[in-house]
């Protein structure tokens, strides 16, 4: 655990499929289920839509955490997009952690439209994990490389 700057709050981006997880997030809100406000949501049609670049770019931009959430297996509105996503992210997550991204920056979940509670729980978990890790540094692109040699 590293030392955290004062008032630092994790900034987390979430890519939610519009049919299950986004609706699950809505349900959490409708049921006034409290959860941590650190997540910014991008609605995508399907977890299968989530290009690995979305995750990598988010990390490069300085997001402290990334969450991708879709329909449970077998429940994909588009039949099987989440199955492809699952394979893609199994590889990507392992790769990112292998190159040294801290375990706990990138998360995946299945949240259905009826799982408002689960959504809240996932967000809280993700936020807490990221909070423990502290601000992202490793993949973040800071500023110009000027000057001369490394």
């Amino acid at each position, binding site marked *: 655990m590293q030392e955290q700057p004062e008032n630092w709050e994790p900034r987390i981006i979430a890519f939610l499929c519009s049919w299950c997880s986004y609706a699950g997030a809505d349900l959490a809100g409708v049921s006034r289920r409290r959860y941590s406000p650190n997540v910014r949501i991008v609605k995508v049609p399907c977890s299968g839509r989530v290009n690995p670049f979305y995750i990598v770019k988010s990390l490069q931009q300085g997001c402290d955490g990334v969450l991708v959430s879709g329909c449970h297996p077998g429940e994909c509105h588009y039949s099987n997009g989440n199955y492809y996503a699952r394979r893609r992210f199994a590889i990507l997550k392992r790769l990112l952690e292998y190159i040294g991204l*801290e375990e706990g920056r990138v998360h995946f979940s299945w949240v259905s439209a009826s799982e408002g509670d689960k959504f809240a729980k996932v967000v809280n978990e993700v936020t807490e994990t990221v909070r423990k890790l502290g601000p992202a540094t490793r993949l973040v692109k800071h500023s110009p490389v000027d000057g001369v040699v490394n």
Partner: protein
Amino acid sequence: MDLQTKLRQEARKLLEEKLVDVVIGYEDEGAPLRTTPCFITDPQDVDRLVWNPFCDHNLARYLTARKDKAAVVAKGCDTRAIVVLINENQIERKNVNILGMPCGGIVDRKKIYNHLKNGDVREAVLKDKVITVKGLEFTADLMVDDFLADCCLSCRHRNPVLCDVQIGENLPPLDVKDEYKKIKQLEESTSEERWEYFRKTLSKCIRCYACREACPLCYCQQCFTDQNFPAWVGKTTDISDTIVFHIMRAFHTTGRCVDCGACERSCPNNVDIRMLTKKIAKDVKELFGDEAGLQLEEKAPLSFYNEDDPQDFIK
């Protein structure tokens, strides 16, 4: 008859009978410890073809741009790359004539230079698995097998997986003890250590894209690095940009990389590129049981799924 002679015979036959327009193989232009790709169209030139442990290029790289019918000299890994290229519609099976070479491994020049403390090799003669290297201040006899490329040491497909003519008998399978030893070692280290390792090796990258260009499977008309809408990766040598480039290039080889080692060999700054691609190959095998380029009409692991694929990483 040695394999080189056989190879030349076969190439001559193919050209004379006009079965192919060109034979893509290796020739020796005199540079010690290396060969260079050659494109032979005249049967009279087939004696330029050589076959030795310095034939390290993956010539499948040259097939994608061709419209004519080409014969290509291909080692086990090269034939696997060809299989992937056929599966991905990049070449037509009928347009390529594969001269399959059972391969005992190729020499990693950098290992020799290293052994010689970066000595400047001015002459090298290969005879029966012994390379006699000469520099201005030294002469040394080196065993080929002591200087094989890393990818060859863990090679489990030394024989062509697909070919029209196989030159020579199949080699027995190599006794690969721990294919992923280096990867596992790294996996077992801490996150900080891994980050430090990759930061260090990737900071040597000068974004010359030789790894991409040498890779037979990096055939995209437009690489993601050149994409504008949106521009995913910065073009600088900022460590973040460099790492993202390598993460995504490696990711794009998922289930496709045949571990021919072309990327790493081509790197002018000795970046450990295979530590990324091999890791993915390992994961693909562990998670999905797939290995690239072994079968025609096989779908790449990312364009396929099983309902019971592992998902323990998903909340």
